[in-house]
C-alpha cells in the first residue's frame, strides 16, 4: 500500500463515520519498501490539493519521518521547473514509499486492521459489520 493511500483510508466501521478519530489511522509495526514508479508531476500536483496535510504529518511521524514542512505547499504548478524538486520529493514519499506489513489502528473504536503482503485487510468481524 502506497503512503499516499494512508491520507485517504479510514476506519470501515459505520459507527466511526462521524468520528474525527477514525482518520488518519495509527500506523504500528510497519515495514516499508521503496519501489520505483514513473514520475507524473501533474498527478502529484492534483493530489497535493486534496491531501490532508495534518494527517500526512501524523502518519509520517508514526513511520519515523519528521522532515516534512509544517504547512502544505500551495498553488504548485506542475509545469514550472522550479517546482520539480518539491514534486519529486512528494512523488518519492507518496507513491514510491510502500507499506508491505504492519497494523493500522482506529483511534475511535480501536479496531486493528492488518497489512500483510502489501494488502490491507478491511474485512470486519461480524460484531462490527
Amino acid at each position, binding site marked *: 500500500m502506497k503512503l499516499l493511500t494512508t491520507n485517504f483510508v479510514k476506519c470501515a466501521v459505520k459507527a466511526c463515520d462521524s468520528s474525527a478519530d477514525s482518520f488518519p489511522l495509527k500506523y504500528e509495526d510497519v515495514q516499508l519498501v521503496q519501489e520505483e514508479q514513473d514520475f*507524473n508531476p501533474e498527478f502529484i500536483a*492534483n493530489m497535493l490539493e486534496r491531501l490532508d496535510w495534518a494527517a500526512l504529518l501524523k502518519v509520517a511521524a508514526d513511520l519515523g519521518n519528521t522532515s516534512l514542512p509544517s504547512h502544505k505547499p500551495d498553488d504548485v504548478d506542475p509545469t514550472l521547473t522550479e517546482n520539480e524538486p518539491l514534486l519529486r520529493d512528494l512523488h518519492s514519499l507518496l507513491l514510491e514509499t510502500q507499506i508491505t506489513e504492519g497494523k493500522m489502528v482506529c483511534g475511535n473504536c480501536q479496531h486493528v486492521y492488518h497489512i500483510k503482503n502489501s494488502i490491507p485487510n*478491511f474485512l470486519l468481524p461480524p460484531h462490527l459489520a
Partner: protein
Amino acid sequence: MSRPEEIAPAEIFYNDSESQKYTTSTRVQHIQAKMTFRALELLNLEDFPHYILDVGCGSGLSGEILTEEGHFWTGLDIAPSMLATGLDREVEGDLFLSDIGNGIPFRAGTFDAAISISAIQWLCNADQSGIDPKKRLLRFFNSLFASLKRGGKFCAQFYPLNDLQTENILGAAKIAGFSGGCVLDDPESKKNKKYYLVLTAGRSERNI
C-alpha cells in the same frame, strides 16, 4: 450455465483455481477489457490523470487498463485469491481486501471517479442468514457517495438477476444522493446484452 452468484459467495467462488482460470482466460480478458473501455467511455473523464476507485477489482484486469490510460487507482475485492493473483501480476494500484457491503473505507472527496466491472450484483445476494441485501446496498452507495468528490462519477457494469435487482440497486443509489440511471448495450442480444449503471455524486451535468 448457472450464475456464479448462485453457487457460492464471491470470496468462496473465486478460490485459487477459479482466480487463475478467470484471470488467464483470454475470453474473460477480452470481455473484461471491452467492458472497462466502455465504462471509461461512459465516465467521459477529462484528460488529466485521475484517482479512481475500482470496486470489485479482482486480479486487476480493469486496473491495468486504467494504468494504460494514465490513471491512478485503488481496488477493493472480497476474494483474497483474486488479490493474490493481482499481486503476482504486479498491478500498479493498491489492493484492499474488503467487503463493499460494509462500506467504502475512504474519507470524503477521495476519488475523482469510480468504476466497477461485474461486481455489484453480488451485493443483492443473501447467502448467509443475518445478511440484509437492502442494508448492504445502502451502506455501499452512501459510503461510495461520500468517498467521491462532488460531481464525481461512478460507472458500473453489472449482471442483474432480474428487473427487481436493477430497481433495488438504482433505488439505493438514489437514496444515497446519486443521480443518473442505467444504460443498456445490445438490448436485443441475450448473450451480449450489458447493463451499465452511470451515476453522478451530486448534481448531474447532463441527462443520461
